[in-house]
């Protein structure tokens, strides 16, 4: 219990520090949302200033940060100047979409990486393993942007997949299952692309963890007892190799979120990525801060989850901290 609560407190403090850092960074930025208004000769300087003070933009940094933090805790997540409303409703749908996409992609990537990694570790040095090695390093070198543009080309050229968005127009009237099917259909390309980007790193780690596990004496003993190979690999070796893989799950959240952002922008998936780019162009600082903050929350939560999983799966950590 001590371990969990310590990790939790650490996560909260970290998020607080991140929030102050990103808030201060964006507040130091030259210019603000009202710059365009200032250039408009029909609006007097006085009016602009009074609007700014209405939104509290004329207050010093610590006070603005305090107000913003209060708004964060109340669940409004700040105030969007461009859409003149709290950020939270804007963000809720986008965050859900990003989670849906990256969650599906993570699942897909692991479901592919585990058998491939285990198999290439089992056949180490064989031709399959060698082909796999070349393939993983080639995929690693393909720019993510190129991959997503290629998938978009596929969708545009063949019409097999939707070219963007998350739902087809006119979906609202349909029952739940048809709606879910439609979303899943839109999810195929971006999720597949993300999974492919993640795959090489995961396969490499699964392979090396499995090789280490397969070389340990208890596996040799098990092999000597004549335990069938599939059972040996998945029932005995894989759990022994799972420790570094769970940590990897935590680390991969960061890469997943970054890559997901690019995929969302290129394949116009209505997640946090496109929202971030739009709000940068419209200088809507509070939306930018909220999106960046949320991405950090996801990342820290992912790491926390991996810590908890590790705690649950590895008795050594439990005894160490008691």
């Amino acid at each position, binding site marked *: 219990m001590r371990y969990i609560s310590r990790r939790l407190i650490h996560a909260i403090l*970290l*998020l607080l*520090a*991140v929030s102050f*850092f*990103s808030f201060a*960074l*964006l507040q*130091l*930025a*030259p*210019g603000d949302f009202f710059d365009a208004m200032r250039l408009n000769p029909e609006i007097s300087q006085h009016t602009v200033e009074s609007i700014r003070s209405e939104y509290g933009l004329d207050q010093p940094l610590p006070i603005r940060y305090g107000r913003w933090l209060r708004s964060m805790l109340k669940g409004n997540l700040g105030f969007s100047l461009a859409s003149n409303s709290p950020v939270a409703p804007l963000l809720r749908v986008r965050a859900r979409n990003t989670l849906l996409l990256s969650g599906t992609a993570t699942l897909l990537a692991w479901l592919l990486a585990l058998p491939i990694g285990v198999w290439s570790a089992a056949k180490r040095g064989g031709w399959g393993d060698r082909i796999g090695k070349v393939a993983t*390093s*080639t995929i*690693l*070198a*393909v*720019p*993510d*942007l*190129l991959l997503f*543009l*290629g998938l*978009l*080309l596929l969708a*545009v*050229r063949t019409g097999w997949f939707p*070219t963007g968005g998350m739902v087809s127009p006119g979906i609202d009237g349909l029952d739940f299952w048809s709606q879910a099917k439609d979303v899943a259909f839109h999810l195929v390309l971006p999720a597949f692309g993300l999974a492919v980007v993640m795959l090489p790193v995961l396969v490499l780690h699964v392979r090396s963890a499995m090789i280490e596990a397969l070389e340990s004496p208890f596996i040799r003993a098990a092999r000597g007892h004549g335990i069938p190979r599939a059972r040996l690999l998945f029932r005995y070796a894989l759990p022994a190799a799972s420790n570094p893989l769970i940590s990897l799950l935590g680390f991969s959240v*960061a*890469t997943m*979120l*970054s*890559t997901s*952002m*690019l995929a969302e*922008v290129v394949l116009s998936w209505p997640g946090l990525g496109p929202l*971030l*780019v739009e*709000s*940068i*162009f419209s*200088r809507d*600082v509070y939306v*930018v*801060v909220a*999106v*960046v903050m949320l*991405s*950090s929350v*996801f*990342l*820290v939560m992912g790491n926390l989850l991996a810590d908890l999983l590790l705690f649950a799966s590895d008795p050594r950590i439990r005894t160490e901290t008691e």
Partner: protein
Amino acid sequence: MNSRRKLWGALILLAAFHGLILFAGFFAPYGFAVQDRDMSFAPPTRLHFTDAQGKFHLRPFVYGLKDDPANPGAYAADTTHMYPLRFFVQGSPYKVAGLFESHLHFFGVASDGRLFLMGTDGYGRDQLSRFLYGGQISLLAGLLAAALSVALGILVGSLAGFYGGWIDELLMRGSEIFLALPWLYLLFAVRAALPLHIAEWQVFLLLVAVMGVIGWARPARLIRGVVLSAKERKFVVAARGFGASDAHLLFKHVLPQTYGVVLTQIALLIPQYVLAEVTLSFLGLGVGEPMASWGTLLSSLQQYYILSSYWWMFLPALLLIPLFLAYYTTADALQERLKSVSL
């Protein structure tokens, strides 16, 4: 042996790639901003060896381009005009290393012919030339930013690892903040804090600074780890016992042990930063027209009709694969060597 050969192969490929880009003016048949509005979206020019009469030519040649009468907007080869490929030709002026002017180009065709080995974009600009010139911005940005990140990483990592105590605590907590943000989000957040429209060279410097500064955390932590174990090694402890100063210990004994990690990190960071520049410029947040960078070359692909009709607009991105492969192979081989040395 195998890893050694891999390393040399990758290094030779890297040297060739960087050489081409360093001397872009010489290798590019045209300037990066030279437009030919009649040649918008011309496909890659084919090199021929046999002419219409079936006669074989040792020197490859290209046909002139004319509008395809059957297919509006497309081009057809004008077999009445042949332009042999020539090497070391005089062409448009460019500057070598920004100093002296030259007209000499590595290859080209007679001035009324057109040679677009990678096709042209919407303004009829030669994609190959733009790719080579674009590399000067994208690759240089990547190199400088990686150097900056690693330099900061060395500074922070060696201070934290060597002195320990509250300095270590402070610096490492600081690095956690940077690692708690997905790095593309962090990059965009910092970019959001900067003005949207600024002069081109300022954009370049800003990009380098932004990418370099946000990437220090991981190299710093790795270098700190190496420094921590390096300062406990017996010869370092002995030197300390002989009364060596901190600076002497750090520069003569501890930092030289980090060079493997440093080189590996640089080789890994460069492709990442090149890709970051590409991403930012692709979205219009980086280097803008008429400058050529690898990101601006790709940004026209955001339009569906270009994406689906003109396949050669993908070529710049495809050319990045061998470059990245070479960098990753270098990093890999360095890491392997490092392992075998430390054992």
